[in-house]
């Protein structure tokens, strides 16, 4: 019995931290309509700031906490609102989402540059380490008591602020109807700023509280604060009491699983329950969300799709690429040959995102999980490296894609993004990190396919082969875009309600494009595995997915040329990193800054270049910069 109570205490304490972080997320989302994916990274950043002050510089903990919560976090919140969010006013949820993801990567990059990437050997001690009290025959550490008291205090303060103060009441009113609120004279900027400051401060508080309980490294801390997302979804991103209850529930579930599920089972199947379980929970919560009603959004005129490339141009482009790679196979050094090959494989994976995100306007944050499924199928099926294995890689990934998308296509886009994130995290911890499945010490070897008469083992032949595969995929994606299905995808991202009123089955179309995209990612996985040889969990991390997605947004999410550029950048950035020692996580920093700089260019760098080229030829180019994008139903909290 006393074991049960100790698990309960641990669970409630962890859950209280999730509740704090989730309430911050909810406050920001409810007042600004932006789901802050950088929430976890902000918590991580605050935890490291605290470590720097309290552990490295021996500042009094109370003073350090005051500095962070009263100075650093509010400043950061106000800065985020002023620099990043204000110019996004009226932009699509998709675009706001990309900017917060960019912020997350920047914070990760800065933190790893300042504090190093290896897990810290000198961690943050819990508050009053070693002190505990006995309650009901169970030892409760003072740290846990402080966490609980803080959570209660946060709940009370939020309640009083939101119900009793002018700004608080205005913040709640914004939830009901932002337009009406603006008409009634409430200053939207002040409310948005308050929303960001409150959210960031709560993220920081949660980060500081949880840091002593886990390994002090950037990724773990960032991802563990993300566990709060599941709690926020229980409260449907707007109900604070439910959010608090959800946080506690997740904490308890986690503690009981760690406590009661047999150790051997955990080692084999659940290597990291604290990070895997909340994600499963998040997925289940999305399953039970009510169906989103299609509705007309009203006249929002924005053309977001660049001129569609014709068959002639795309074939010419493909031929040029293959010729260039054939030349490269002769003149490039071995290292560069494999870098370009890797770029082409990432290009194929990026093409899967062009279909899904570029054309259909659906966001997947965990595309590398489908890549991983493809690589695994290629490595294991039919002895590995067979053409049947390649087909199976595509088919199985597509099928897994359907399973992930099926419960989420009936809710709004943000939840699909969250579900893909949850799936990718869960797959990472339960599948890719599973030593039973990845039986060669956490990795498996994937063979390359063989063509009759050509040996693809050499990197020159592989480079040419991959350029042919990428070209075929790109020509195929463009052909699809010009056809019935492609028109439907674009129509669907412009107005699902209008699609339905002309007789299109919105869900079936979304499901189809998700399956197609996952299948293409699976093909990318089979090729990726073949190129790398041994693959392991780190290849398929969520951060890899996010980096590739944001690179694609920077280059042009609606263009196969953008996919090629994004893929090549993905391969080249780590090479650049090896030449720059004074900064770590260069790819994350470049991508984060890039996505914020590209900001509202709907078609990225490639789109900008295409417009410039057309203008050079004397054509009239309609400005596509700075036009407000569609305000999706989800941007406003109903």
């Amino acid at each position, binding site marked *: 019995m006393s074991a049960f109570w100790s698990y309960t205490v641990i669970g409630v304490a962890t859950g209280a931290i999730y509740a704090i972080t989730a309430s911050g997320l909810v406050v920001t989302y409810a007042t600004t309509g932006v789901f802050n994916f950088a929430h976890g990274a902000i918590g991580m950043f605050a935890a490291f700031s605290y470590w720097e002050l309290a552990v490295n510089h021996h500042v009094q903990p109370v003073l350090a906490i005051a500095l962070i919560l009263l100075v650093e976090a509010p400043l950061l919140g106000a800065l985020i609102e002023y620099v990043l969010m204000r110019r996004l006013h009226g932009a699509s949820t998709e675009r706001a989402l990309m900017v917060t993801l960019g912020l997350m990567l920047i914070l990760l990059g800065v933190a790893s540059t300042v504090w190093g990437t290896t897990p810290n050997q000198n961690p943050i001690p819990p508050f009053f380490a070693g002190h505990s009290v006995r309650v009901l025959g169970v030892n409760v550490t003072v740290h846990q008591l402080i966490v609980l008291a803080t959570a209660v205090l946060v709940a009370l303060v939020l309640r009083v602020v939101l119900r009793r103060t002018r700004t608080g009441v205005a913040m709640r009113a914004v939830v009901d109807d932002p337009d009406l609120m603006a008409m009634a004279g409430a200053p939207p900027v002040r409310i948005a700023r308050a929303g960001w400051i409150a959210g960031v401060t709560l993220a920081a508080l949660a980060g500081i509280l949880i840091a002593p309980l886990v390994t002090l490294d950037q990724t773990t801390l960032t991802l563990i604060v993300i566990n709060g997302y599941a709690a926020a979804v229980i409260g449907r991103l707007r109900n604070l009491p439910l959010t608090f209850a959800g946080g506690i529930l997740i904490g308890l579930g986690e503690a009981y699983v760690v406590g009661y599920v047999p150790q051997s089972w955990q080692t084999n199947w659940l290597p990291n329950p604290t990070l895997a379980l909340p994600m499963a929970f998040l997925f289940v919560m999305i399953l039970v969300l009510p169906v989103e*009603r299609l509705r007309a959004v009203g006249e929002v005129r924005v053309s977001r799709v660049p001129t569609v490339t014709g068959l002639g141009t795309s074939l010419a482009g493909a031929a040029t690429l293959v010729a260039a790679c054939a030349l490269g196979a002769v003149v490039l050094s071995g290292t560069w040959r494999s870098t370009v090959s890797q770029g082409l494989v990432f290009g194929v994976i990026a093409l899967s995102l062009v279909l899904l995100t570029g054309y259909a306007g659906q966001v997947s944050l965990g595309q590398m999980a489908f890549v991983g499924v493809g690589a695994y199928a290629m490595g294991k099926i039919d002895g590995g490296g067979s053409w049947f294995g390649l087909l199976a890689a595509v088919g199985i990934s597509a099928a897994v894609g359907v399973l992930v998308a099926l419960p989420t296509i009936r809710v709004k886009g943000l939840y699909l993004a969250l579900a893909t994130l949850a799936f990718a995290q869960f797959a990472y911890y339960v599948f890719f990190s599973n030593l039973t499945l990845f039986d060669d010490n956490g990795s498996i070897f994937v063979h390359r396919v063989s063509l009759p008469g050509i040996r693809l083992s050499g990197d020159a032949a592989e480079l040419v082969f991959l350029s042919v595969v990428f070209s075929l995929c790109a020509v195929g994606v463009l052909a699809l875009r010009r*056809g019935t299905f492609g028109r439907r995808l674009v129509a669907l991202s412009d107005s699902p309600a209008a*699609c339905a*009123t*002309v007789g299109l089955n919105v869900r079936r179309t979304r499901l189809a494009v998700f399956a197609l995209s996952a299948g293409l990612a699976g093909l990318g996985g089979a090729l990726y595995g073949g190129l790398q040889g041994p693959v392991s969990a780190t290849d398929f991390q969520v951060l890899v997915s996010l980096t590739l997605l944001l690179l694609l947004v920077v280059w042009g999410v609606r263009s196969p040329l953008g996919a090629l550029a994004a893929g090549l950048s993905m391969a080249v950035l780590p090479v650049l990193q090896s030449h720059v020692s004074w900064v770590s996580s260069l790819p994350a920093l470049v991508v984060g800054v890039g996505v914020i700089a590209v900001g509202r260019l709907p078609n990225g760098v490639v789109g900008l270049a295409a417009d410039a080229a057309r203008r050079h030829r004397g054509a009239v180019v309609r400005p596509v910069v700075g036009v407000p994008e569609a305000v999706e139903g989800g941007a406003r909290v109903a």
Partner: protein
Amino acid sequence: MSREAAALLPVADVALRASGVSVRFGGVQALYDVDIEVPRGAITGLIGPNGAGKTTLFDVLCGLQRPGAGSVFLGERQVTRTGPDHRARLGLARTFQRLELFWSLSAADNVRVGAESSVQWWRWSHLRRRGHARVDVDALLARVGLPADLAGVPVDTLTTDRARLVELARALAIEPAVLLLDEPGSGLDAPESAALGDLLCELAAGGMAILLVEHDMELVMRVCSRLHVLDAGQVIASGTPEEVRGDPAVRDAYLGALFPEGEHRDFPAGTRPLRP
């Protein structure tokens, strides 16, 4: 339409019928016990002041809004609980008061999405005859009066009245049996409005059932064979245009503002927010 009047129409002639429809948004009763019938081969008008619930009724009829009470019948088929896409496949098309176009596509492609909506791209038969929709997209755009040189331009560059024509063409592209038009004539000048009226009469003569929401009273009185007047979520009058025009309740609620002392006047322009 009053219940006695409804009893006069043979069921087979009614293409779309709503009965006892009520919708509530929070504290606002948007529609209350609305009965309406749209007969085949005729144009039925739906008029009423702004905020009377006309667009909400359209949403209920096409399936975008589920009513709190009441039923919708498409022909003899009860469709109250079916989705908008299913109703569209059964032959119901609509346009929107605030345009709901595919802004990233050209005018022709907008219509093509409608024309191809019955195409099942995963079927082998589609692969064999790719892109051959049953409907001639260019002819359809010409029929609604869009200049031929505008077919290829992205719709976000079109003026609102022309974009409206594209939406009409898109609705017609699914070859509907019932057509719901939400203010198709707003922004049109007199000759254009007359041309639209001719087109609607032509469509009705071909057997289509049309429900028309319109503030242009001249157009409504010319083309509609029956009118329903909606005010504050309730049908306050139904009948022929002459009957409705003479109804004192209708004058009080709506027409009084438009026909002072029985004199015809156009509805004042600029009643809708224009977006850049």
